[in-house]
C-alpha cells in the first residue's frame, strides 16, 4: 500500500479523534504504518473537529494535516455545507457520510462529481450506534463502513482496534455497530 490518507470531519463529542485512533490501530494490527493526528478546534461539545489518518507500508514522517484525502468520513451531516469539508478530496476518492438522507436529498452531488458511485456511501451510523450501543456516537459504525467501502482494512482488524480501546458492553456495542455498518455498506455496494 502506498500512502492512503483519510480526513474525518465531525463535531466535538462524536468521537472524531477516537475514530482516527482506532483506524490507526486497525492498520497497525495488519502490520502497516499508520499515523493519526487530531486537529482540535476549541475544546467544546458540538464544535467542528477534524482528525487525520495516514496509512503506508513505509515509515510516515510528515506532520502536516491531510489536505488531499483519499477518503473523507463525515460524522455529522450538517458539515456538508462547509466548503472546507470536501476541500482537496482526490478524484476517484471515497466518501462515507453519516446520514439518513440520500446524496440527492442533501444536494451535494455537484461537489462529488469526480467520485465514482461505488465510492460514495451513506450509512445511518448514529442510528446503528443508538441501536447497538444505546448512544448515538457514530464513530465505530463509520470505521466499520470505511472497511467495507475502501477495502483498505479487514473488519476483523477494526474489531480488534475497537476492543483495544473499549471493554465490556461498550466494546460489544461498538463492535456490533461497526459490523452492522460494514454489512450495510457491502450490501449497498453490491446493489450498485
Amino acid at each position, binding site marked *: 500500500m502506498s500512502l492512503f490518507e483519510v480526513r474525518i470531519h465531525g463535531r466535538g463529542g462524536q468521537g472524531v479523534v477516537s475514530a482516527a485512533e482506532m483506524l*490507526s490501530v486497525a492498520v497497525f494490527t495488519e502490520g502497516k504504518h*499508520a499515523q493519526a493526528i*487530531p486537529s*482540535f478546534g476549541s475544546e467544546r461539545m458540538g464544535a467542528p473537529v477534524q482528525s487525520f489518518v495516514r496509512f503506508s507500508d513505509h515509515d510516515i514522517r*510528515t506532520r*502536516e494535516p491531510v489536505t488531499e484525502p483519499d477518503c473523507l468520513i463525515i460524522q455529522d451531516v450538517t458539515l456538508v455545507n462547509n466548503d472546507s469539508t470536501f476541500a482537496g478530496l482526490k478524484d476517484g476518492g471515497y466518501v462515507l457520510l453519516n446520514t439518513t438522507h440520500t446524496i440527492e436529498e442533501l444536494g451535494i452531488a455537484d461537489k462529488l462529481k469526480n467520485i465514482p458511485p461505488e465510492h460514495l456511501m451513506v450509512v445511518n451510523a448514529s442510528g446503528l450506534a443508538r441501536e447497538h450501543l444505546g448512544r448515538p456516537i457514530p464513530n465505530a459504525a463509520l470505521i466499520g463502513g470505511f472497511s467495507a467501502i475502501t477495502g483498505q482494512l479487514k473488519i476483523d482488524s477494526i474489531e480488534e482496534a475497537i476492543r483495544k480501546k473499549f471493554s465490556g458492553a461498550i466494546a460489544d456495542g461498538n463492535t456490533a455497530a461497526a459490523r452492522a455498518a460494514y454489512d450495510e455498506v457491502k450490501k449497498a455496494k453490491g446493489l450498485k
Partner: protein
Amino acid sequence: MLKQVEGSIAVAEAIALCRPDLVCAYPITPQTHIVEGLADMVRKGKIKSNCQYINVESEFAALSVCIGSSATGVRSYTATSSQGLLYMAEAVYNASGMRLPIVMTIGNRAIGGPINIWNDQSDSMALRDAGWIQIHAETNQEAGDLHIQAFKIAEQLSIPVMVCVDGFLLTHAYEQVEASTQEQVDEFLPPFKPMQALDCDDPMSIGAMVGPEAFMEVRALNVAHFDNALEPIQEISEEFEKIFGRKAGGLFEHYHSEEADTVVVSLGSVNGTVKDIIDEYRKEFVSIGSFKIGCYRPFPGKQILEQLKHAKRIIVVEKDYFAGVGGCLANDMKIAFRGSDAKIYSVIGGLGGRPIFKKSLMKILDRAMEDELEELSFIDLDRTLVEREQVREDQFMSNAG
C-alpha cells in the same frame, strides 16, 4: 514490543520504566496525557519503584515539590507546557541553580496572549537560558527514548533536563513505537546516586542564600558545568544505541546534509516533514539536506559549524518568534557562524498551531536556492492582513493622540 500508541502514553511508559520515585503535576490545561498515564500506572502499582504521585494546585507547586523531593535524593519528574511553564519560571531557575537533576517534559505549545493552546515552541524557547539542558524529539519513538536518556544525563551531570516534545503533533498523535523493556532500561540507567541530598543524620543546606562575596563564583561554576554537558549528552546517546539497538538523541543528525550546498536546520517534529521535502528535491538531484538539532541547550554551536562548514546557505526553520529577537535558533546559528561565508536565513512558521505544509516550505526553499529569499521570512503569513491592521492601528493611535 511494537505498539500503536499515543505519544503521551509512549512517554509515560518510558518514564515508568525509569523507576521514578516521585511524579508531581498539575493536571489541568496546558497538560498532556503523560501525567494522566503515570497517575494511572502509579495507582495500579505498575511502576517498579515506590513511586509517589502528588497532585498539586499549580505548575509552580509541581516544580517546587520536585525541587524538594530531588533535594532529598529521589528521582523526580514533572511535565508542563505553555503558560504552565511560565508560571513555574521562578522554580525553573532555582532547580538548575541548585543543580537538582529533575526531568521535565515540555509538550511544546504557544504562549499567550492571545490565548492559544496549540503547538509551537515559544514555551521552551522562553526558558532556554534557565540553565536546564533542552533536548528535542522528532518522533514519538524518540520522545520516549529521550526521557530514558534524560534521567541519565540529569543524574550524571546533576543538571535538570527538559525534554521538548511538540504538543499535539507528537503528544496527541498515534504512531508505532518500539517499547523498551525493564531489563534494557535497568542496564542503561543506574539507580540515582545524588551528588547532594538532605539527610537528617548528616545535616546540610542546599540553595541557601549566597551573598555578593560568592554568588558570582556559584553562577560561574554552574555555567561551566553546563557548558561541559555536550560531550556526555552525545556519549549517553551512543550508549543508548548499544543497549536498545536504535538511535535517539545526541547533539545532531544529518539527513543528506554532509555535503549539501543548502541545509535546512530545525528542531523537533518538523524534521519529519523536512525529510520528506529533502527526498523530493533529491529526486531532482538538488544539493540539499536537513540537519536536526537534537540538543538545543547547551547549544552545540562549534560542533554545528564544524559539521556544516561546507554549506553555502543554511535555512533555519523554527516555531518561535520573539519581539526584539526574532527566531531564537536563527540567532544562535548566526552567532555560531560568525565569520563564515554561509548565508543564514531565518524562516518562522507553525506559530500557534498553524500547520507547516510541505508546499509552502518548498516555495521558501526554492527562493533561498535562487538567492532571492529575505533574511527573515514566514511560512504562510497573511502579510496583507498584518500590514493593513498596522496602518489602521497607527491611524487610530495618532487620532487618539
